[in-house]
């Protein structure tokens, strides 16, 4: 497989030319949000300059062009995750909204008091709180897949956890640990007991080739902004028949076929779930992001990040030894290039403050996964997350900045 030309890729991202504290920006927070290539910025700019009109409304030329651009983006996203049908991609604001959509529509219709929803200890709040809200409303039971000592899902008790469950909702890749979960066996286990599988793919779709059909998932949620696209748009994938069986989510324009004083009928999927004027420019930008990723190749990106993960793990171990604890597996087949770590005696907040002086951007805190932090027994971690535009020089810059932080707080 051809290695990525990271120098060339970096040149596509205007943000990476920025200097902070008169130093080269070392952006290692792509698990929070990715930077955007010129292709995405240009596509959105071009949309607003040349094609701006509302979609699915006007018959004038520009409106037709806007609608075509918007729906073309849907097609790109559908192909990117190997959907069977463009109607299976529902545009939402982000993965969080996609999961809430499922909770509000499918789950509210199909779950009763006493039914179980199975989650895991490594979930983001986005895949916890909607179910807790539903549990409070419907009296459903939440069950939790624990983690192994190697920070992977402990599936040894899965049959018991799934017994009587209606839904298994699990992340494909942890935003904290970097753990990659093998989705297909989870789908098989869920389906064996008649439960559906929801995959929070927010962290995996940007980094790993995604095939929702090979996963045999039922719902897949992901966001544009973590995969080179703009903020404000994401998608819910589900098979057409399942989407058609679900009641609508938000009410308003676009989602209706007809409205009379005494009621309404819903539009076809996916528009049935897209009330109001959608994020049109954002969809266009996302389409461009997907084209950009596709041109580089997801297998090449995965290969690059796997190499970077191995390099970074070895580097941090060599430079800091036992003084730095990485919360994540060392098995490169089971992890991406996201690293959460803790220094002996130095708080994550202080680490990220000092490394910022070196223009190294890392995240400090609980990463919207407080239950996981409690399982790990830590208040907060520092997280460095890499993407296709990062290279070994960025890992070296991180290690140098961490060494400075360690020296600064030496007791």
């Amino acid at each position, binding site marked *: 497989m051809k290695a990525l030309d990271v120098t060339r890729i970096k040149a596509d991202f205007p943000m990476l030319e920025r200097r902070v504290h008169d130093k080269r920006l070392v952006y290692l927070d792509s698990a929070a949000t990715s930077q955007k290539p010129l292709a995405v910025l240009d596509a959105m700019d071009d949309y607003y300059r040349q094609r701006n009109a509302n979609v699915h409304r006007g018959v004038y030329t520009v409106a037709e062009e806007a609608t075509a651009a918007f729906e073309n983006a849907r097609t790109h996203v559908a192909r990117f995750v190997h959907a069977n049908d463009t109607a299976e991609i529902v545009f939402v604001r982000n993965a969080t909204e996609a999961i809430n959509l499922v909770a509000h529509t499918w789950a509210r219709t199909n779950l009763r008091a006493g039914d179980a929803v199975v989650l895991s200890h490594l979930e983001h709040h986005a895949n916890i709180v909607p179910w807790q809200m539903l549990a409070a409303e419907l009296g459903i039971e939440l069950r939790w897949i624990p983690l192994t000592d190697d920070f992977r899902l402990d599936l040894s008790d899965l049959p018991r956890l799934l017994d009587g469950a209606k839904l298994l909702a699990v992340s494909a890749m942890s935003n904290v640990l970097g753990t990659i979960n093998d989705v297909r066996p989870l789908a098989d286990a869920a389906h064996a007991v008649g439960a559906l599988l929801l995959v929070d793919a927010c962290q995996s779709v940007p980094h790993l080739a995604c095939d929702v059909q090979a996963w045999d998932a039922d719902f897949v949620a992901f966001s544009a902004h973590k995969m080179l696209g703009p903020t404000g748009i994401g998608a819910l994938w589900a098979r057409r028949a399942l989407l058609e069986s679900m009641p609508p989510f938000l009410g308003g324009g676009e989602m209706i076929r007809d409205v009379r004083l005494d009621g309404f009928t819903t539009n076809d999927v996916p528009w049935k779930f897209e009330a109001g004027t959608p994020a049109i420019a954002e969809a266009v930008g996302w389409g461009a992001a997907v084209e950009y990723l596709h041109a580089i190749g997801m297998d090449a990106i995965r290969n690059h990040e796997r190499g970077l993960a191995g390099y970074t793990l070895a580097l941090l171990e060599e430079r800091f030894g036992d003084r730095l604890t990485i919360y994540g597996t060392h098995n490169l087949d089971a992890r991406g290039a996201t690293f959460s770590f803790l220094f002996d005696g130095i708080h994550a*907040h202080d680490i990220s403050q*000092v490394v910022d002086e070196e223009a190294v951007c890392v995240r400090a805190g609980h990463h919207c996964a407080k239950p996981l932090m409690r399982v790990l027994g830590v*208040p907060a971690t520092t997280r460095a997350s890499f993407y296709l535009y990062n290279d070994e020089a960025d890992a070296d810059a991180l290690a140098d900045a961490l060494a400075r932080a360690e020296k600064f707080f030496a007791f």
Partner: protein
Amino acid sequence: MPGLEDLYREIILDHYRSPRNRGELPVPPAHRVEGFNPLCGDEVVLFLAVDGDTVTDVKISGQGCSISQASSSMMSAAVKGKPVAEARTLIRAFKALMSIHESKLDGDGQPEQDLGAQLEGVRLGDLEALQGVVKFPVRIKCATLAWNTLQQALDEAGVSA
């Protein structure tokens, strides 16, 4: 551009390395209040003993960054043994130092321009070392965590004096 030395003053690092009044107090008679910084997961557990109008003892446990830990330590040293009224004035003075002016929102009818007059003569001493935090807005919540927790503890202890 503010530098690290504005934030991490030597006296702050000293309180971080050697925190004062670490530990716990028996509850009751002491009051135990937890404060959380939702941003970073920092946690301050404050034990407050009040006798009449006096803060007789303060202990701090929990975990957090250097700023929240140093601020907790300095707060405990500043209010221990002081009258409750003085502790409350210190809370206001410290928040003013952090550029947080809550007097109007407190519903006590004190216009903001009077705050300076009210706080005139209040000596923050070592606490002024935390002023550099203002240049790092994200960290203001770290510095104020212990003080908000103290305020809550005083309220729960029912000592409004």
